[in-house]
């Protein structure tokens, strides 16, 4: 543990300020609360928003899991995990069920979360209306007046151009029938996991200096049209080559030798857990 710094890196005053913004975010589901985002020892845009939330919330008894793009072992996830454990000494885990705090970039784990867990998502661009309106001052007014035609119009234009909605990740959602929110670049596959989630979901954008939240059991609906319903990515007829799972988010890979496309669980810890269930005496 690095003792040149305070517990969890920040001074206590800073942590309190971030928690105050977080409380406000929980009280107004989907509303982007501005906060005085601090410069962090990792790059702006590399998860500083999520990291600040994690550090402001973490206590000595917490168990931390960090994933990046579904993987516990991605360099960025490892890097963040290392920073938090260096400055707090808390235990880290790969197992979703064991974790009390889960910081993630671009994924919600496959294992359903429970009420004793907090999911912290890293957000690059928190403003769902930014493509429609570049000015922060203007988008703030649009949110205040619940004027979201712009969000639907962007989708309508995609349908006109391409015949379907072409949002990749970060498909906008309506929270608690009030605020349109960017769910962070999670795949559309994960959007439904936000709806009525048992776990508290916090979203932090460090560079853009915003915190927002989906409190437990909150209605979250992906934006769509009556005749063009929201569609998650489809992995129909596909399964994980390692553990055989279906109905999970899969990475598409190419076999170097046979040149064939195959699929593998994106959530690596989930995949390993399934493998161990199937084959309790399996080898490495």
């Amino acid at each position: 543990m690095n003792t040149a710094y305070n517990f969890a890196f920040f001074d206590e005053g800073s942590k309190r300020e971030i928690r105050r913004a977080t409380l406000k975010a929980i009280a107004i589901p989907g509303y982007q609360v501005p906060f005085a985002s601090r410069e962090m020892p990792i790059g702006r845009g590399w998860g500083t928003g999520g990291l600040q939330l994690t550090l402001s919330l973490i206590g000595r008894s917490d168990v931390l899991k960090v994933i990046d793009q579904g993987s516990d072992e991605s360099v960025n996830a490892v890097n963040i995990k290392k920073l938090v454990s260096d400055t707090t000494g808390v235990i880290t885990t790969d197992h979703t069920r064991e974790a009390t705090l889960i910081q993630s970039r671009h994924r919600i784990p496959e294992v359903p979360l429970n009420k004793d867990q907090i999911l912290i998502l890293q957000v690059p661009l928190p403003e769902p209306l930014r493509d429609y309106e570049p000015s922060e001052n203007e988008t703030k007014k649009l949110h205040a007046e619940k004027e979201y035609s712009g969000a639907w119009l962007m989708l309508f234009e995609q349908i006109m151009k391409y015949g379907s909605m072409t949002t990749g990740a970060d498909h906008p959602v309506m929270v608690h029938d009030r605020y349109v929110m960017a769910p962070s670049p999670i795949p559309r596959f994960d959007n439904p996991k936000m709806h009525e989630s048992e776990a508290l979901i916090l979203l932090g954008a460090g560079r853009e200096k915003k915190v927002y939240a989906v409190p437990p059991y909150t209605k979250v609906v992906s934006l769509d049209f009556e005749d063009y319903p929201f569609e998650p990515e489809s992995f129909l007829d596909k399964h994980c080559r390692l553990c055989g799972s279906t109905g999970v988010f899969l990475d598409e890979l190419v076999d170097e030798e046979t040149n064939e496309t195959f699929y593998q669980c994106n959530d690596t810890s989930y995949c390993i857990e399934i493998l161990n269930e199937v084959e309790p005496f399996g080898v490495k």
Partner: protein
Amino acid sequence: MAEFEVPVLSIKNLNKQFGKGCLHCQDGESLVKNYCPICGTVYACRDVSFDVFPGEVLGIVGESGSGKSTLMQCLYFDQEVSAGEAYLADYHHGERNLFQESSQQQRYIRNHIMGKVYQNPLMGLKMNFSSIGNIAEKLIAAGSHHVGMMENRGMELLNKVNIPVHRRKEAPKNFSGGMQQRVQIAKALSNRPPLLLLDEVTTGLDLSVQASVLDLIKSLQRELNISIVLVSHDLGVIRMLADRTLVMLEGKVIEQGLTDQILEDPQHQYTQQLVHSLL
């Protein structure tokens, strides 16, 4: 027009000034026309009142600087009034002063009860979005969430304003000025508003294009029986479209009446000049 008819829109004592005003101009003493040379305040609209009845086209004519465009901006909440009241029959039975509603409510009114066509298409259209998307924006704002329905309505309207339906996915920035105005008209009509505001819609267009846009407005008005407030500096446009006309000068309404009557027997010296120049 029967007297017991309820007006669609009622404006009472609308005032709009730009600048703070000073001791010299607040009682109107120091004004040169509608401008205070001491403090630089402009009194753009002074005590303007009028009613618009169902199915009626009300023309407002005046030279540039007479306050007619400012008046239009106030009606569509693009500008905040300095004082005055406005009532819409279709909004809380005409019992709520629109100017005192929250900006959220004003947005509702704009999205559901009004349509506006601006002189400059840049103000009324998103130039980089498709034409059908521009129409859909207004429909979405009014609560529609059905793509097929919006596309059909959009095509029906584009057809009505004589834009080839196969060009619906093109952005208005590719269109000529006359076509852009017609897309604006289609957009303004999309949610079937009881009231349409037209601000110098033909100014800047070629004469032949002007004529076709005016014809279009006239036939749409007859077909849909919509109420229109029409602002123009061109008495020719007013003569062609308006049932009743207000003449504005220096921010004030100086004369009003049936259009025919104003054209045949203008009372105010300025109106006489205006009519004379038309002949």
